């Protein structure tokens, strides 16, 4: 079933950081949200999640910083149990083991607090928690920012194979156009609190129309060092 929101917005300290935005996300969609640093991607992600949850829809969130999802005073085990409870998913040790080993963090000690794990491990733990239930949408905010390329690619593959055919849609917020190019079918570009361009991934990469999209496309490669 299609998820739809309209009139999302955000104002902080008197500044509008997200202008009125409407979105439709169909079941199983793979959407990418890109844009310059500070353009409002995380803000849109948060607003979207709040609105959909208020509508009673099932949405999972992998925030940009694991800190946002993990309480420093609680063990990782506690977080997992809480997540199962929140999703009304009966405790299932097998599922936990499967998800953690698929993400290659089964070796981590769940009795530890988050800071006892590396940031890359924490990031994968949060991704694993998002996969416990079967949400209608997962918002992934820079999910690979703390991962090395081998693990980043594996993690994205795992997400895809886990979600394939389930109907769960994903919104991938990323600064990495190279990553988005391979993982999503539609791209939205943000600039100064607005979605300024939306198109199929291929069209957007081949002929970006707005300045924001052109700048992202033109600076993809480290080989063509600018300035």
């Amino acid at each position, binding site marked *: 079933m299609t998820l739809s929101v309209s009139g999302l917005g955000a104002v902080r300290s008197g500044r509008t950081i997200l202008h009125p935005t409407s979105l439709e996300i169909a079941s199983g969609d793979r959407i990418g949200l890109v844009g310059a*640093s500070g353009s409002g991607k995380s803000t849109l992600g948060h607003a979207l999640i709040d609105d959909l949850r208020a509508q009673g829809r099932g949405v999972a969130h992998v925030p940009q910083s694991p800190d946002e999802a993990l309480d420093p005073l609680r063990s990782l085990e506690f977080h997992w149990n809480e997540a199962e409870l929140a999703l009304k998913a009966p405790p299932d040790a097998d599922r936990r083991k499967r998800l953690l080993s698929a993400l290659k963090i089964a070796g981590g000690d769940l009795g530890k607090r988050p800071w006892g794990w590396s*940031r890359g491990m924490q990031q994968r733990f949060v991704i694993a928690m998002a996969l416990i239930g079967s949400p209608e949408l997962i918002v992934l905010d820079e999910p690979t920012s703390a991962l090395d390329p081998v693990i*980043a690619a594996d993690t994205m593959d795992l997400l895809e194979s886990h979600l394939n055919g389930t109907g769960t849609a994903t919104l991938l917020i990323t600064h990495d156009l*190279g990553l988005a190019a391979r993982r999503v079918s539609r791209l939205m570009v943000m600039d100064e609190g607005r979605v300024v361009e939306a198109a199929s991934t291929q069209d957007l990469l081949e002929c970006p129309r707005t300045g924001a999209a052109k700048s992202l496309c033109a600076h*993809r490669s480290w080989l063509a060092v600018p300035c």
Partner: protein
Amino acid sequence: MLRVESVSVRRGRTMTLEDVSLSLEPGRTLAVVGESGAGKSTLIAAVLGFLRPWRGEISWAGAPVRDCAPSLVMQEPRAAFNPTLTLRRSVMEPVAARRPPPLDRMERLCRGLELTHDLLDRRPLEVSIGQAQRLGLLRALIAAPPLVLFDEPLSALDAFTQKRTARLIADLQAEEGFAALIVTHDLGYACAYADDIAVLRSGRIEELTRPKDFIASPRTAYGRKLRDAAVALGAFERAA
């Protein structure tokens, strides 16, 4: 010059660094790449003297590294700041004792990092994570230190800002000659800016080579895997 000689670090029963040796001259850049948990952050902590090596020596110009007042760009952008202080206070802390404060340098860095004054008057939770990362760079560079350790310094920036920021760091380095040790997952960045690349795996340096040679022909199986994954993620793709 930074010298790390046959350093091993033990945490409990596990060896998190094993017989690591490297050196870094002023004005040069060494990129350390490798899997999550390979010991990259441990290496930084050891260089800064937060962890005492079990074996081996670490020094800067023959003295303890801390004597040269090195700076660190932390991996978690917001963790670098006190949540209750304005970002301006935190950023200026390394030069708080200087009279007069280096305002010209501050201006220049802010311009290069695209940080507005309005941003500096906010607190850490009131800026985006990419903005917090650039503020961390500002704080690390404000005092013109001779050695800077960067832990994933561009990980939260968009493609264009990454490139501008990398250029700014390199320009400053060319003028001031600081030594840069950069831990990064971004092989594209490492290959574009580093003089040498060290591949760290399970606490050991598996290869230490020039970027060009690493892209062309990694010497170890893990090096190849890393390069191929970076290619698959689009790190070396040419602009359309």
